[in-house]
């Protein structure tokens, strides 16, 4: 399986993602934002970080970069596109995913482990995954997912809510909502589930000696589903 990680100026989780993808069997290539073409891939990843210094709005400048046209074409043809953290913000700014990531409710940069519940397994990302609840890391200042009421209804009706913040038993509440996100949303799918954007970082959780191992479940499962 082949993957491509796009690097923007200011991306800082690109190498972690490269390590994670390779660890679980992907042949990964790094692609610079100023390139026009992406090598043939089964998965494109927009990594976390601070693309273009978060100027204007997080992800807005990256959303207009040269490489994005190829990402949009790939996504619209049904290709798998995964956006983590700033990658999620970029996906909303390109319009590939609905809504927007606002500044955290309490004006703080949040850097901690959280639990998220997988809400929909009928897709390439989570089908057959061995866990319902994952412990993952978040590190962001703009992770407060927001969309209109109609859009939220449409997300619910189309089963587009991918992961939600919860406690270790899977209970969602305001107490475990780190950033004020609407309906505890930590990640969403596109309508046909080929695009996934989420704030938590599975690539930081692939070594049980360093952190939690729950990201391993995600990547192991993803590559199996793509074979």
């Amino acid at each position, binding site marked *: 399986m082949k993957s491509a990680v796009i690097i923007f100026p200011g991306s800082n989780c690109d190498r972690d993602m490269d390590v994670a993808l390779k660890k679980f069997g992907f042949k990964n290539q790094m692609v610079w934002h100023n390139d026009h073409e992406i090598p043939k891939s089964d998965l494109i990843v927009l990594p976390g970080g601070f693309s273009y210094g978060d100027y*204007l*709005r997080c992800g*807005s400048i990256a959303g*207009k970069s040269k490489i994005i046209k190829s990402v949009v074409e790939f996504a619209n043809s049904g290709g798998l596109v995964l956006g983590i953290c700033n990658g999620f913000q970029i996906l*909303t*700014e390109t319009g590939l995913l*609905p*809504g*927007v990531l*606002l*500044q*955290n*409710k*309490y*004006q703080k940069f949040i850097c901690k482990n959280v639990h998220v519940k997988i809400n929909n397994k009928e897709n390439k990302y989570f089908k057959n995954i061995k866990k319902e609840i994952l412990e993952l890391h978040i590190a962001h200042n703009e992770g*407060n997912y*927001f*969309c*209109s009421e109609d859009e939220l209804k449409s997300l619910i009706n189309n089963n587009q809510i991918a992961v939600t913040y919860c406690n270790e038993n899977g209970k969602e509440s305001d107490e475990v909502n780190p950033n*004020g996100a609407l309906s505890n949303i930590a990640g969403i799918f596109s309508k046909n589930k080929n695009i996934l954007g989420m704030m938590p970082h599975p690539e930081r959780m692939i070594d049980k000696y360093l952190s939690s191992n729950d990201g391993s479940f995600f990547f192991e499962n993803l590559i199996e589903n793509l074979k």
Partner: protein
Amino acid sequence: MKIKVIVTLKDGVLDPQGKAIQQTLNGMNFSEVKEVRQGKYFDIEVNTEDEKKAKTKVEEMCKKLLANLVIEDYKIL
């Protein structure tokens, strides 16, 4: 010529920075302050003197980049 643009958050969209500024102003004894909403201001210099043409272009810029219409409104001054 220069075109000025103001981008503001739509009503109902959470503005934690505006809220913090409001609370600080209240703390500085500006007790009359009820709410602060923070926005962005752009000075855009364009190479034309045709104001109508320039504003049409700037409007396109607002829709495509300067504002995120999910959460923001723009005003061309």
